[in-house]
């Protein structure tokens, strides 16, 4: 093939040109297109890639869970015992402090704390995921997106398991199934999107600046205390703007509405949460994609 054939390329820009044969892989030139079409064209390609490499994701998630639960006979039991003990301690201390009934307090705490765990653990793991998989990234091609995605999915599965099991355990605490609980999968889905978006940002940052991981830990701790999980949102009366600048608040509020109060959340709250989740995922994706090609040189 002579060089001239390339210039006759009929495509307006260097994206996929011909009707794609099954395993077409193609690189657009890095410098010739500006960021916006690259991002949009890249998104379609990414979806195709994710579909192709989906078995890797499921495989990695399954492995991780198996290793986590296989080692100890009490594997799953331990992942339950940990939040139960923590909730017990927190309930003992804070229900006294706030003068609430322990049953009520424990149940509200549970409805906020378990989802929070999904985000906190995901972010911590995402910050390390590129560095931890250095061996893989340097040896074989995989879409880098699957590493943060895998971490978040693993935590999603554990969260669903503990939500289910804990809920059964909490029946003696007057926990009962209510109709609004049907919204739980949707809320959980939005919160996962939100976490993934942040996870992508953290994964990118930490690969370039290795001390970000520590900062993330500290930041998460502060954020945790600024979010009404340990205490009711009514504590913010008069300074409610502090709630609305907290992007995690709508999600936690939704979880508490759906699990603890058993009421239908207001549509505006729902829309705000959906908006935040979309923005988070969008920004995270853009940040990750713009730096994806540079990651390997930083390992």
């Amino acid at each position, binding site marked *: 093939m002579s060089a001239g054939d390339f210039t006759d390329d009929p495509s307006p820009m260097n994206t996929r040109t011909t009707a794609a044969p099954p395993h077409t892989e193609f690189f657009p030139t890095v410098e010739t297109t500006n960021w916006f079409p690259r991002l949009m064209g890249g998104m379609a390609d990414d979806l195709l890639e994710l579909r192709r490499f989906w078995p890797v994701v499921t495989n990695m998630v399954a492995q991780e869970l198996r290793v986590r639960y296989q080692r100890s006979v009490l594997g799953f039991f331990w992942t339950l015992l940990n939040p139960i003990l923590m909730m017990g301690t927190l309930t003992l201390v804070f229900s006294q402090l706030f003068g609430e009934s322990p049953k009520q307090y424990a149940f509200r705490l549970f409805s906020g704390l378990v989802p929070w765990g999904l985000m906190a653990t995901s972010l911590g793991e995402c910050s390390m995921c590129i560095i931890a998989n250095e061996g893989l990234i340097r040896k074989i091609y995989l879409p880098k997106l699957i590493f943060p995605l895998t971490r978040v999915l693993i935590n999603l599965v554990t969260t669903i398991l503990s939500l289910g099991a804990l809920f059964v355990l909490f029946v003696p605490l007057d926990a009962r199934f209510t109709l609004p609980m049907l919204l739980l999968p949707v809320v959980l889905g939005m919160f996962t999107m939100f976490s993934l978006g942040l996870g992508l940002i953290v994964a990118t940052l930490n690969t370039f600046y290795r*001390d970000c991981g520590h900062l993330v830990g500290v930041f998460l701790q502060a954020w945790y205390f600024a979010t009404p999980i340990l205490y009711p949102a009514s504590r913010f009366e008069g300074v409610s703007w502090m709630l609305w600048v907290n992007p995690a608040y709508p999600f936690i509020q939704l979880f508490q509405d759906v699990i603890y109060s058993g009421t239908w959340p207001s549509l505006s709250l729902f829309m705000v949460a959906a908006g935040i989740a979309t923005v988070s995922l969008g920004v995270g994706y853009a940040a990750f994609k713009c730096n994806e090609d540079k990651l390997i040189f930083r390992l």
Partner: protein
Amino acid sequence: MQPSSATKTSSFFASKKSRRIDSSENTVPVELRDVSLRFVSYHDKQYSLKRAAMDLVLRRGETMSTDFWALKDVNLSLAKGDRVGIVGHNGAGKSTLLRLMARIYPPSSGTLKIRGNVAPLIEMGAGFNPELSGLDNIMLNGAMLGFNRRIMATKVDGIFEFTGLREFADLPLKYYSSGMYTRLAFAIATEIDPDILLVDESLGAGDAAFAEKAKARIQGLLGRANVVVVVSHDMSALKQLCDRGIWMEKGRILDDGPMAEIIDRYLEHTASIVA
């Protein structure tokens, strides 16, 4: 921007000439045009926010990295059935070129088109998880090469037959010897019938009997009109396996031609340097 819709319009209005290009495009599995790769190596991989802040405050310039062109203006197209051997001195960019074709490194500039499934045998055991059993690793490795469980299940028998590792199928990979490891990796990469097989120096791995089997297997792959690219310093193996030779020097392609000729010229050149 949906590539599929762009495709439709462009092929609909495509002239006769561009259709011809389309058809020829589909038959060229590997194509590099003016591909360059700028390698940035950071002296401090542990660069941190703290350092960044201090550099900013102390107005230290960015002397943190050195860069060089690992590949410069490489033009190459490989046709179906090409068996290509790459020769060159250490640091000539042979392995880098292989890694680029395997998509491990993104090109810094230029266009790189790869059509088909790539099986990289660049580093042994890439994508293996030592905690998992041999069978699980076959599944995982297959997934990383783009094959789902169902397809891999049909290939497991062939892999075990070739490697003779069936009795160790349930043993975690960390208990495998390095020879077993290599055999398994090689068998997976070749059993999946890749369109493009990239091999880096690994032919010498394993015992003599296996090396023979491996060569026979690569030759078998060639019969099915696939592309094989081999990087090696073992000239006799290259002569046996490849028909097209590429000589690389300092990130550029110096010479391209029949394997035997390239080897002769390369050895001549090497001898002249030494003498």
